[in-house]
């Protein structure tokens, strides 16, 4: 979306994609919807804002939330000009579906393939506009000159070459870092977030990792999230006794409580020994009419049929799995980071979702802030009169760094896949849904140990230049440690529970001390942090007395 918006302004745009355009990242996997359409007369962008803030534990940047909710409905019809088509009611207006935590149904959708449909449209529009794109190319370093973004060094995975791309304005739309945890679609490895930190940008709310309550868990071969539309259409969560346990935890919302809450409730049921046989919990739509399932959930239906399971007839086994990192690069309402010329949008940016993201707010985020980032970045680039200098030497430096990783002397060093697996499992165990001080400290220790003992020894044994994915894993390992460290340090600092961050040793919400964002940045090569009090320019917490008076981590 950023590339399209920038090209429309008349800027020369280059899209660098680590995978293949339209197929990479996790947007195509977003099934549910785009929270954008205030169809009910009593609904409005203000109520959408309230829902987003309540879900985010009021840690959200209210200015960003206001922009998100105000701009959303303008962009959906644009997607249809790119070739998308969303479901409609008989009167011709958009059909909307409900998601957990939204007071009213307001998510526009296309079957249960909304993200995919959106990506079809965006990809076609990029082709129509003739925007240049480099597929399977990974940015390994951002170059900042005189305090402003000047370009990036990119590694071509297909042929192993390094090139310097000069750019007076760079938009990071690189997704979040949920792949640091055992996420099913783990291409979100936080490259952009780590690059931004090195370039001097600030990161915020990095301790909040959202676990999606309903991830496919069994059979072994099934992967990925079972869309929230599964619950939105009336799906039940059942324990091994066949009870709808959510009615005990949240009698009003039941299964449609926010994701953070549902995930913890499922974990509690599992820990209490009421889980399903393979370590998950049951989810069922079997009580719904078969026709509705076929009409509204065709992808999930077919996915399970492939493994011999018919969701029209019986339950499936699911388990909460890492899904979305709520934090990211700190931006302002123009999608600008603290580094001039550097922009961030979508999941790579933080501040929009606070401590917990509402289902279907992510696609909205992509559209709204993608459009803003592209437009503002293009304006800035076009205003610039001085030519941007070429810096081939940075590409050479990166090439030498990689040659060091692949040097022959280090052949017997660390096994990368084993190291990565260990870190993923430890992040899940210690930095997952339930956290406590000793677990978090164990993780921090592991990160420090890896930095001290392993990082210098990381060796890439595959010596090929073309599609050397081991080298990609090695380069990602450096990014991974940065994200892990910041997330873990943030989690240790935040001595309360709020949204996705649940501390067993501090189970209550502490508004007195913790209505603050933890912001990390680098200064003189040192990682530093700051606590910044959240500001309340428009919506006050006291407008929601029930929430303000309770100390529950969730709405």
């Amino acid at each position, binding site marked *: 979306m950023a590339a399209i918006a920038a090209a429309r302004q008349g800027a020369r745009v280059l899209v660098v994609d680590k995978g293949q355009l339209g*197929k990479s990242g996790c947007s195509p996997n977003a099934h549910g919807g785009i929270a954008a359409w205030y169809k009910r007369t009593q609904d409005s962008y203000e109520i959408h804002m309230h829902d987003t803030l309540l879900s985010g534990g009021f840690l959200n940047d209210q200015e960003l939330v206001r922009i998100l909710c105000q701009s959303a409905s303008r962009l959906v019809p644009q997607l249809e000009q790119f*070739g998308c088509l969303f479901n409609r009611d008989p009167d011709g207006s958009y059909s909307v579906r409900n998601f957990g935590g939204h007071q009213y149904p307001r998510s526009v959708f296309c079957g249960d393939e909304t993200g995919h449909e959106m990506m079809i449209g965006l990809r076609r529009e990029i082709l129509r506009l003739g925007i240049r794109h480099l597929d399977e190319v990974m940015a390994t370093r951002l170059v900042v000159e005189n305090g402003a973004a000047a370009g990036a060094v990119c590694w071509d995975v297909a042929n192993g070459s390094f090139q310097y791309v000069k750019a007076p304005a760079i938009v990071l739309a690189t997704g979040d870092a949920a792949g640091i945890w055992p996420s099913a679609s783990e291409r979100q490895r936080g490259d952009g977030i780590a690059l931004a930190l090195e370039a001097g940008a600030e990161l915020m709310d990095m301790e909040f990792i959202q676990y999606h309550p309903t991830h496919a868990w069994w059979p072994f071969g099934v992967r*990925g999230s079972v869309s929230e539309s599964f619950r939105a259409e009336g799906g039940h969560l059942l324990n091994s006794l066949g009870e709808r346990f959510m009615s005990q935890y949240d009698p009003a919302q039941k299964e449609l409580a926010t994701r953070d809450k549902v995930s913890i409730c499922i974990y509690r049921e599992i820990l209490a020994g009421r889980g399903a046989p393979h370590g998950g919990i049951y989810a069922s739509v079997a009580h719904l009419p078969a026709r509705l399932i076929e009409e509204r959930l065709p992808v999930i239906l077919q996915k399970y049929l492939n493994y011999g399971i018919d969701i029209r007839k019986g339950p499936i086994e699911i388990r909460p799995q890492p899904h979305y990192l709520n934090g990211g690069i700190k931006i302002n309402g123009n999608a600008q980071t603290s580094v001039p010329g550097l922009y961030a949008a979508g999941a790579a940016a933080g501040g929009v979702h606070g401590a917990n993201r509402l289902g279907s707010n992510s696609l909205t985020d992509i559209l709204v802030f993608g459009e803003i980032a592209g437009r503002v970045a293009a304006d800035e680039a076009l205003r610039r009169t001085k030519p941007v200098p070429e810096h081939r030497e940075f590409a050479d430096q990166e090439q030498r760094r990689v040659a060091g990783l692949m040097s022959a002397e280090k052949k017997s060093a660390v096994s990368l896949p084993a190291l990565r697996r260990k870190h993923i499992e430890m992040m899940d165990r210690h930095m997952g849904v339930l956290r406590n001080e000793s677990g978090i400290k164990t993780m921090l220790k592991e990160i420090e140990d890896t930095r001290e003992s392993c990082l210098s020894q990381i060796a890439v044994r595959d010596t090929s230049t073309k599609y050397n994915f081991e080298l990609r894993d090695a380069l990602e390992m450096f990014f991974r440690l940065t994200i892990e460290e910041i997330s873990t340090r943030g989690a240790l600092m935040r001595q309360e529970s709020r949204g996705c961050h649940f501390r067993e040793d501090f189970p209550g919400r502490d508004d007195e001390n913790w209505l603050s964002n933890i912001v990390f940045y680098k200064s003189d090569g040192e990682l530093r942090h700051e606590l910044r009090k959240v500001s309340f320019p428009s919506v006050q917490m006291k407008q929601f007395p029930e929430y303000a008076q309770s100390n529950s981590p969730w709405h």
Partner: protein
Amino acid sequence: MSSYLQPITKPEATYTIHVKRFNPESNAQAHWETYRIPFVRTMTVIQALEYLWDQNTYLAFRANCREMTCGSCAMLINGAPGLACMTLLQDGSRIEPLANYSVLKDLIVDTSGIERKYKELEFWPKLEGATKISGVPRSVLHDYSHIYSRCIECYVCLEACPQSDAETTQFDGPMFMLQIARLSKHPLDAKNRPRQAIERGALSCVNCYECASVCPVGLSPASEIGKLRRRAFTQDFRNFWRKLVGKEPAQTP
């Protein structure tokens, strides 16, 4: 490279699989290699490849979502095209890259020609006049949410179709026809898509339905081709009649 694979703690059997490998820097030609995989029921081909990756085999393959949404992991599995993320692993499976394209490394093929064709075929709505959609027939909405938005452009049908060849323009092939059908139903598209389908070889389809039998998401491009052909004929007949008689035919023939 690989996604996080749950630890295979209790394998139920050991399977043997054969993978066609090719590294352009060290091999003159492709060769088969045999591997042993700890098997768990319902294990998919992609999980077997991920397992191999974790064993430092440096096997190159494309995969992104692992849940049949991105269409990146199409390959030939026991001679038939399919998505590795949803094909169940069998003992003795033979895994090789798609055959229609040049191999870049191991299971990765060069599909850049496909994008060129997308541009050539103008796969976006040609806007003329209205830019806002008012009414949309129910059947079109149904087709979008059940057919068109579900095509993941994985190229599996292109591989199975006996009449199409990704590199020639005689018949673009099932996936392209389905995309043309998608646009033909889009309320804002003003281009004559049935005509475009005929120009791109829709008449070459022999209704063998191979595309439908291999489609990982259960679509039937052949049926869409049939509909496009009928619509093109109807248009042609109307034009012919208009020229001959000087007015519209009374009824759609």
